[in-house]
């Protein structure tokens, strides 16, 4: 079980694309920073549809995206720490 952490916008980094290529059953994805923005795009929603995806709440609110991402599970920094501990390792792409 791996927690994949993506921080950069998909426009600037291929991190999420690479992560999706190697993701395994039972893994989770945490989006923070500008990586969250991809959730506004239908194309990326489709790619992430069957995966466990969470977004960092503070980064969502900071960007004024809370109303657009109501259906996405959002977690606090404390929950982020808990989530890291629940997984065997974290990969920061």
């Amino acid at each position: 079980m791996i927690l994949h952490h993506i921080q950069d916008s998909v426009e600037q980094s291929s991190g999420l694309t690479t992560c999706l290529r190697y993701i395994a059953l039972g893994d989770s994805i945490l989006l923070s920073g500008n990586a969250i923005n991809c959730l506004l795009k239908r194309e990326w929603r489709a790619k992430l549809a069957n995966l466990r995806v969470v977004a960092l709440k503070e980064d969502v609110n900071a960007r004024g995206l809370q109303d657009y991402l109501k259906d996405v599970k959002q977690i606090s920094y404390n929950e982020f720490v808990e989530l890291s501990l629940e997984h065997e390792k974290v990969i920061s792409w």
Partner: protein
Amino acid sequence: MKKLCIIFRQAPHGTAHGREGLDLSLLSASFEQEVSLLFSDEGLLTLLKSQDPESIGSKDYIAALGALSLYDIETVLVCQESMQALGLELEDLRIDLSAALPTEISKHLAEVDEVLVF
């Protein structure tokens, strides 16, 4: 001894990522960690033959790839999907290795203790 996988996913030269990744690989290996390398996406370009980074003022850190076996780094994977995307073949690469399918790479990432991405 920890199993450490270092992923090169960014193109060499232009940024310091690749060099830092390789430095860390050699350093970890000389601290007797079990190091494996994975080259994916444009990171694969690190492995191309006949590079001349010094001509653009970059350090030739690629040369150290030839010393991997002396550092006991035996597992070197390249992503087959990335190879195809870039139109490259194994004979285009400067070291002997085998291409791995994404599923094989997932399995490897699950097996190691730590994964660091450059």
